[in-house]
């Protein structure tokens, strides 16, 4: 299977396609284009694209079909979903169904480049992991999977339900491995409300890229981890325990947990 380009963009708006092509050129990515689901699916079946950026609302189908097709191929392509109809459901659903990132339209150059940067790193890690498995080198660990009782939103954030009914929120190690070392961290305050699929924190990294973190759960923040404020690198060092971010009273955990992936499924 030949690698036609680094990125396949599927969007029915020419102006957006053009803009993405231009932006990708900034970071020296080569881009192929499809203006509808049909051509998109054809191109995916014929060629290999490491990254696919797909709109959710397309004239002849939706982006979730692309997501399904890519999943079936098992070819390590990663998908970034984007849509102008950016509802929380769309965002959370995309991540649940296997998209690696979700960018609501309209986006800025930096937002897209940050996502591409993360996704490329994600890709590299996954390829490396594949290689390691082929070589049967189980001793080398690329990232720490999240503990069994945790649930995660895509590969970005996790939640852990505490016995008291509160929920801990933190970052997955895989996500932290796709970004550079955190320089600056912006957090919400105690008593603020967060909503599943909506930004709840942002990290500015050593390479000046800014990454917006989507909350895995809705609720009210009752505690912010003070340790990570003074020492953001704690998140990188111990993402699942000492490096937690918020303690939250969840608003509707029974409903929202359906869109989270149980980490116990990662062990198989």
């Amino acid at each position: 299977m030949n690698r036609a380009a680094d990125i396949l963009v599927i969007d029915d708006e020419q102006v957006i396609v053009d803009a993405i092509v231009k932006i990708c050129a900034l970071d020296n990515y080569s881009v192929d284009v499809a203006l509808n689901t049909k051509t998109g699916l054809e191109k995916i079946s014929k060629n290999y694209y490491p990254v696919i950026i797909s709109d959710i609302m397309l004239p002849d189908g939706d982006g979730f079909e692309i997501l399904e097709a890519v999943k079936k191929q098992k070819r390590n392509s990663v998908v970034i979903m984007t849509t102008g109809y950016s509802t929380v459901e769309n965002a959370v659903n995309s991540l649940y169904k296997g998209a690696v990132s979700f960018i609501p339209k309209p986006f800025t150059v930096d937002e897209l480049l940050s996502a591409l940067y993360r996704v490329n790193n994600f890709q590299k890690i996954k390829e490396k992991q594949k290689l390691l498995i082929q070589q049967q080198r189980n001793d080398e660990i690329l990232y720490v999977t999240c503990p069994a009782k945790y649930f995660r939103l895509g590969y970005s954030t996790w939640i852990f339900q505490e016995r008291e009914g509160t929920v801990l929120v933190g970052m997955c190690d895989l996500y932290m491995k796709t970004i550079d070392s955190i320089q600056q961290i912006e957090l919400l305050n105690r008593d603020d409300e967060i909503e599943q699929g909506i930004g709840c924190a942002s990290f500015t990294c050593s390479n000046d890229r800014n990454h917006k973190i989507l909350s895995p759960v809705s609720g009210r923040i009752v505690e912010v981890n003070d340790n990570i404020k003074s020492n953001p690198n704690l998140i990188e060092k111990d993402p699942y325990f000492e490096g937690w971010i918020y303690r939250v009273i969840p608003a509707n955990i029974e409903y929202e947990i359906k869109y989270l992936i149980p980490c116990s499924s990662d062990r198989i």
Partner: protein
Amino acid sequence: MFKKIGFRLIFVVAFTSLVIIGVFAYFNVKSQSSSLISEVERHANQLGETVVSSTRFDMMLNQRDRIQQIINSIGKQPQIRDVRIINKIGEIIYSSDSTNINKMVDKQAESCYACHAEDRPLEQISITERTRIFRLHPDSNRVIGIITPIYNEKSCWQAECHAHPKDQKVLGVLDVSISLAEVDNAILSSEWKIVGFSIIAIISVGLLIAFFIRRWVSRPVNDLLNGTLQVSQGNLNYAIKEMGDDEIGKLGTSFNNMTKKLAEARMQLFQSDKMASLGRLAAGVAHEINNPLTGVLTYSSFLLKRTKDNPEFQEDLKVIVRETIRSREIVKSLLDFSRQSIPKKSLADISEIIDKAISVIENQLSLNKVKIEKRTEANLPNLTVDANQIQQVIINLLVNASDAIGKDGGVITLFTKQISLAPVGIAQIKKATCPKRHSLIDNDFKIDGLPSLKVKVISGDKEGIAHLDPVYGKHRNNFNVGFKIEKDAKFVCPECNNSIVQQDKVCPLCGSPVLAFEISGQGIYEVCSSENSNWEKWEAVDSVGLREYIEIKVTDTGSGISNEDLPKIFDPFFSTKGQKGNGLGLAVIWGIIDNHNGTINVESELGKGTTFIIRLPLLQQR
């Protein structure tokens, strides 16, 4: 005229009193005249006896002149028309009218017929049989005649004149005739009096009844009629004026209540439809705007990146990027508004939510000299709501109230209590299955934002999916399957093709087959399979009867809302605050309450204040 209820009542009452008073008057006149007549009879009889006994002595002595004199002097009395003594063979022997003396009377004539009707003369007869009333000429006064028989006795046949033999029983009769002119006049005048009285009584009863019927029945019924006409013409704001506390008065009050409820329901329905279509519109517009906005934002931020060494461009480009990001936020808020997201509900104490809402803006309100009074019914049960959203609703309403009050200060009162309302038009079907437990809920086809019920229709060789309204009592069913549904069409589960038509049952309104959906834990929901009939039945919900709600009233003493603005206040982008507001506040509130299956209403009077009434169902539908 006879079609008027008042007239009919008056007619019936007048007719009844006419009959009663008429019968009464008739018998009254009759008994009066008969007692008068019998009085005259008695008097005449007495007179007869007197004459007989006063002439007895002279009879014995056979002094005929004296007898004639006595009779003459009696006959001169004004009412006495005639006094005669007639002997056995019918010859008038004495008479007050001397011309009749020695004349024979006809025994067959009325004077004699009481005794001589049969051939043999009677010897003993009663007073009534001896009396007769007659007219000499048809146009003369009535006359009463009484015959007193003069019986034979020992002294008569032993008298010296030997005029009468011993074996004779009756010697003759005394016939006294008395004119009844005076009695008749008295009877006539009393008849006239009674008739006059009766007429006056009937008329006055009629008038009295007419007056009260007009006051208690006709006028209020007319008012009611007028009211229903107004309502049927669409004027749901029409209210009937106070009509007292009788049944019709209560009818009026209940009529007013009904129109008020109707107006509210209509408003809610309008709003519901409007919101649903506006939501779709907003979502569509937002989507459409987001695409060109992406172009602007990506290109401008792209340029910003490429002109890093040109500060002159940088400034201007930064403005473009900043303003585009601002537009993005506006579109996002539009989407937030249009989004029919499921509220994140949990059990919450409404009183606590209100307290929290108040504490958030209390400081701001006290600066404006606005006082908040909270009146909460004790022991309110917990509600399944999205506490954050409800808190947002209360805060928005309090801010609005405070804005309406202005700088002069005022009071905002929050009343919270539990009430009961009927379920039709509110209960929603959220889980429905075929007999084989396949779900019949269609999340892809929504009716007014709610997932519909689906059923496969097979008609001939065509098949399609029909969608039914999930809200019980709203009937917004969609039978548009792209072909005509024939009478023998089959209705089956789209997954297992098992029929979902209720056996042995047809729609009581149109006779079409009845579809049955199993609602887990809530029995069976039945609905007519024809789009022409609105018949549906959900026993489990009907049997629940009234549903419990928590009612929250937010009342302010502010400027109020004018009648023109009142229907528009829940519309998105409608604002009276000018630049201060974006006009989405109340629309968002409406959306939140609607998502909680609740209702929101507003009452307002210019210059006096506004009241928002929120009703949230106590038990959430499953």
